[in-house]
């Protein structure tokens, strides 16, 4: 399931909802991305997350489907926040539940890697020196390419 929202989320509540009544789930992995205050030389005061409504949900659903094809996943939840967030605030949650821990952890890593390079979100940083759009990093592309099938 995919959710794009301004509101914060409760990791434990979402995790319980995902596994409730499913006694064949042996492992749940959660990745939570947070706003850092060390994006460069300048202190970060806040981030504003912009996205492409419609395409975001479409891409995230495609990424979820790809993960379900590759791993035996019982359930997936992706929550991505939008709007203005301050350092320490949660930006993104990726939750995967599987009967096997390996599938749960690997699919979680796959989802966050793909999300970083394929989902249409952009970050505007407010620093002590002004505003600037965060640049995409080669290391993120490398992380996604690692999952390409040979």
């Amino acid at each position, binding site marked *: 399931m995919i959710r794009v929202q301004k509101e914060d989320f409760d990791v434990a509540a979402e995790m319980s909802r995902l596994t409730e009544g499913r006694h064949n789930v042996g492992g749940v992995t959660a990745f939570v991305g947070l706003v850092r205050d060390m994006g460069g030389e300048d202190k970060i005061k806040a981030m504003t997350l912009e996205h*492409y409504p419609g395409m975001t949900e479409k*891409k995230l659903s495609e990424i979820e489907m790809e993960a379900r094809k590759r791993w035996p996943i019982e359930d997936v939840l992706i929550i*991505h926040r939008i709007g203005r967030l301050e350092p320490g605030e949660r930006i993104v949650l990726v939750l995967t539940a599987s009967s096997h821990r390996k599938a749960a952890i690997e699919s979680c890593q796959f989802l966050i890697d793909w999300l970083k*390079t394929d989902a*249409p979100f*952009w970050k505007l940083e407010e620093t002590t020196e002004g505003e600037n759009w965060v*640049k*995409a990093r080669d290391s993120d592309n490398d992380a996604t390419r690692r999952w390409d099938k040979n």
Partner: protein
Amino acid sequence: MKILYFAWLRSTIGLAQETATPPSDITNVSDLIDWLRELSPAHTKALSDISAVRVAVNQSFASLDYPLASDDEVALFPPVTGG
């Protein structure tokens, strides 16, 4: 044709969205960007370095040679930075 701009393309052009009617010889993404670039000094500035621009047609990533139809939704934006 609906054109959407995001992130610094939006702020440089000063528009989130515009409706364009390019001439009939504009048949693919690359042609469209060349044509949009001439619309205003802000467009020229935003679209000067095409290697910094990513394109989606009807909400799917598209390459520069992707063919266009008159009712397409075309989005131009920098590489994504979510997560």
